[in-house]
Structure formats: structure tokens, C-alpha cells
């Protein structure tokens, strides 16, 4: 298994007053992601056949984390993986 990939990490806003609030958002993906394709067929009595496919992404479960300087407050946002509500020190 390969190391996962962080696509981006951003702070919004980028400049704040001391103690100010900032939202830090991370986007990442699993380098081992291996989509699997399943093909369905539908055949009538004469042998006519229709097909359709669906792609199922197969990923490792990933966990986002964030650390900051002493005194900073970091709260992972419930239901939004990779999003952290923070206050700078």
C-alpha cells in the first residue's frame, strides 16, 4: 500500500487577527484507489443483448488530522472530513 496523497490544504481567511477564526480544509485521496467495473447484461429470447456498467471506487479508509501551534484551537467539523474550525493562538 502506498502513502495517501494530500491534494491541497488551505486556510480561509489566510490572514487573521490574534485569536481569530480560520477554517482549514484538506483534500486528499488514496494512492491505491482501484476502481472496479461491473458490467450487467440483459438478454432476450432471441439473444439480443444490452449491457450497462457501473464503476465502484475501492479506497482505503482515510483519516484526516491537523495539528497547530500551542494555544491554537482545532475542532474537526462533524460530518465534513478534512474540514477543521480553528482559532489561531
Amino acid at each position, binding site marked *: 500500500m502506498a502513502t*495517501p496523497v494530500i491534494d491541497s*490544504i488551505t486556510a*480561509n481567511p489566510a*490572514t*487573521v487577527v490574534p485569536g*481569530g477564526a480560520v477554517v482549514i480544509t*484538506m483534500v486528499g485521496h488514496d494512492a491505491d484507489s482501484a476502481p472496479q467495473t461491473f458490467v450487467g447484461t440483459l438478454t432476450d429470447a432471441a439473444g439480443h443483448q444490452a449491457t450497462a456498467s457501473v464503476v465502484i471506487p475501492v479506497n*482505503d479508509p482515510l*483519516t484526516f488530522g491537523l495539528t*497547530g501551534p500551542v494555544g491554537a484551537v482545532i475542532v474537526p467539523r462533524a460530518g465534513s472530513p478534512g474540514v477543521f474550525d480553528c482559532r489561531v493562538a
Partner: protein
Amino acid sequence: MTIQIFTGTLTDAAGHQASQDVAVNVDSLAPPSWGPKILEWIQPLPDSTGAIIMANPGDWQAKANALLPGQSLYLTAGEYGARGSTFSWTRAGIATAPITISGIPGDPKPIIRGKINLNGPYQRWSHSIFDGPTGPTGGPGPNGESILVNLQGNELELSDCEMRYDYWHAGIGANAAISKYRILNCYIHDNGGYLGDYTDAQSNTSHGLYLSPSYYGLIANCVIEHNDAKGLMGRHDSHNLMIVHNTIVANGRKGSEAYEQTHDWTWANNIFLNNGNVKGGEGLSMAGIGPGFLNRRNVFWHNNGPSLTDEWAGVGTTSEPLVADPKCVRPAVYTPHQDPAPDWDHHLMSTSPAIGYGDPDYAMPFDFDGKPRGTSPDCGAFQH
């Protein structure tokens, strides 16, 4: 200024871990920004820092539609346009250099007449009075009356403006599936009702703001007062609207309503006062299908009638509402017709429970008057 480093990590099930830093600038002189929850949906429009061009009532339309990115057109005090006319502002700015039409800062606001369309993108209109009725401009109202200010493009801002005395549907309308608009520090009052009569056929369909398909809008620091039906109405699939720090008062039917397929609206740090007292309706109605309606730290008082018990309703999440008299200096009350000379005052008295009750995550840095809100924001348009 100092820099604080935050380090993000991403770990898979086998313990493999990637990490990456992000820097946050910490500056005690940094201009305060919009609350972080607001910034998730919409960002401020940059200033127009290019050349300033002066205009007068005879040449403003041609000059407005010849602006280059970053330029501003200043309107000297006076009357522009005419009832029965339509002006469509079709010139485009760019993301880093919006174009602006504005009255001269510090001077009396120019008075704009007729129907105005903002076609975008990247347009700002500031420091002006849009004075209804529109006159015959194609309807759909009788005599061709229509909405005063129509937001019809992406990336727009209306700020420090007054919209008043429209006869049909709304002072401000947003439609055409537009995205990213900001309505800031505006006084939106006495709109709706043909000939100013709030008992006519528009008594449930003419509003202060009427937001049809439109997405990622911010309505903040506005006084939305004494409009025919609803102060702020949204329908169809309007979504991701952020409604913060407004004083929504004395509107006939409801203070604000999200209806039909609307979803993902946040109302935070507002005051809902004296709405629906005559026609019956809540201060806040979350009547759309949702999901994602959030009623967060709003102050409610004396909404609905005659029982005055339904301050809010609907399918959303309600978080820490405050039902209490916000103690405005001279609060508006509903009357069944437009008020030609409103004299209300919605600043807060020193005993107001709205003082300091706002959630900083949804705060605007300044109030209606430009007063800093600091770290303890009040609810409503005015910081005490």
C-alpha cells in the same frame, strides 16, 4: 505580523501517512474578515482600484457600459433614469478587477429611477437610492410595473443602497440561476402592493427581496422593513444562501421564508421583529424541502399574529434562538400601505439582549453604519 503553521495529516488503514503544512498570517492590524462560516460559501468582491470616471444624468448609461475592469463610475448627486425606462448594465468586470457604479462617497446618494438590470459578472453598485415605482417597464404587474433591481448575472454586489416603493413583486429580485451575489448594508423598505396598497392581490407575493433560482448569496447588515408580504422570500431551488446580521421588521406576511425546493440556507445573527402581525406568518419560515436549513442565534420577538407565538417554523435546525424583545430604539410596526416617510430607528438600546448574542463564526466585521463589530457581535444590522 507572525506566521503560525498548521500541519495536516492524511493516514490510511495501514498507517501510511502524508503530511503538509499551511501558514496562517496573524496580524493585529489585519482588516477583520467575514466570519469563517460565511467564507465557506462566498468571498468578498475585491475593490475596484482603477480609474474613477465622473458621470451625470445625461451620460451615465453610456459610460457605465464602457467601463474597463477595475474602473469606477461615480454619479454626482441627482436623479438618474426615469420611470418607465429600463437600464441594463451589461459591461463585465473580472475576478481581480470588478467594475463599480456608485454615488460619490460622503455625498448625498443619487436617486435612480426605472428598472435596473445587473447582468454581471463582477459588478458592484453602491451608495445609491433605487426609487420606485418602476413605471411601465414590461410587467408583470399592472401598468407594466416590475421589480426595481434585478440581479441577472454572476458575481454581483449591491452595497450601501436603498430600495424603496416598488409596486410589484420586490425591491430586489434574483433569478436566472445566478451565482455569487452579495447584498450588503442596504435599506430595503416599503416595497410591494400596486399603488402602495398592501391589501391588494400582491398581499402575499410582493416582498423586499424575492430570490428565485439563485445560488451562493449573502444578504448581510441590511434593514428589511415594512414590505408588503415577506421581507426576504426565496423559492424554486435557491440554495446556499447566507442571511446574517439583518434587522427584519414589520413585514406583512413573514420576515423570511425559504419555500419549494430551496435548501441549504443559514439565518444567523438576525433580528426578526413584528413580522406577520396582520396577515399571519412566522418571523422565519423554513418551508422548503431542505436539507441544510440552519436557524442560528437569531433574536425573535412579536412575530405572527394575533397569538404572536410562532416565531419560527419548518424543517431546519434551530440552534440557540433567543425569544426576547431586542429593544430597538423606535421599532417599525406594520401598516397596510407604503410609508412615504418612515421614521423608525432600529439601533439597539443599551439594555438590548441582542447585544453580544451573535455567533462570531457568522459575523460581519462592520455593521450597517460601518461600526466595527469586534469579537462580540450583536444581532441585527446595528452594533451597539
